[in-house]
């Protein structure tokens, strides 16, 4: 599995539901197995992305927080 991030979605400064809305729109542009990274500052997005990945079947590969910015790496199913 490639570890190259194909797309970066900048959802910083946006609040619910826009981070997952933007992620859903961006994931359509990926092929199965490709990775994208979403950047968000909304603290609610942590639980939202976990729920979103369960709902959509896309895998939340990795997440971390970096001085107030949350990074979510998602693999398209």
């Amino acid at each position, binding site marked *: 599995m490639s570890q190259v991030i194909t797309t970066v979605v900048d959802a910083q400064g946006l609040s619910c*539901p826009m981070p997952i*809305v933007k*992620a*859903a*729109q961006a994931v359509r542009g990926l092929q199965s197995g490709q990775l994208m990274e979403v950047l968000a500052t909304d603290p609610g997005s942590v639980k939202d992305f976990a729920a979103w990945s369960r709902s*959509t*079947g896309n*895998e939340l590969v990795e997440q971390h927080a970096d001085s107030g910015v949350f990074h979510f790496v998602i693999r398209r*199913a």
Partner: protein
Amino acid sequence: MTTAVLEPPITTPVAPTEVPSTSPLPAPGTGAATKVRELIIVNWSGEYDRIMPTLIMASAAAASGVSCKVFVTFWGLLPFVRDGKRITGENWMQRMLSFMQRPGIDHVKLSKMNFLGMGPWMIRSLSRKYHVATPRELLEAAQAMGVEFIPCQMTMDMFGLKREDMIDGLGEPAGAATVIELMTNAEASLFI
């Protein structure tokens, strides 16, 4: 002489709920959903603070792969009048209704503390400050993701609203029986 062939061990995790074992269960978060899930929202209210949860949940549902249909009825129909239409209706009562309840997604009032318009102004100011999407942005996002907004035929008739008064992209007008069928078949339904 026969050689026993062992079945490979089942590696897919089993979900807590009882599931018929005829098909393999996809592991949570790493496989595609096997059934289309649907959310039906009956949007009866037309105020800002009530249309926000409708549009937010519709967008979030669509973003989460949950098919969403929103039945817009009564006051909920007025925000879906297209831009530029200030007075709608044919008789004086319908016209007065649109005069007093300004149609259009940019003109939704608050359900409380409207303060003759100061309330919505303050909420919009807060929305900008805290980067909350506007109703218009949420509506565009929802429609772009395939949320179907279905207008109520009966309300359109009563308020004197015609198809050309409404925004583009709405579904075919429908009635209560359609809504009942949608709601009883869907996984979740809401009345806002």
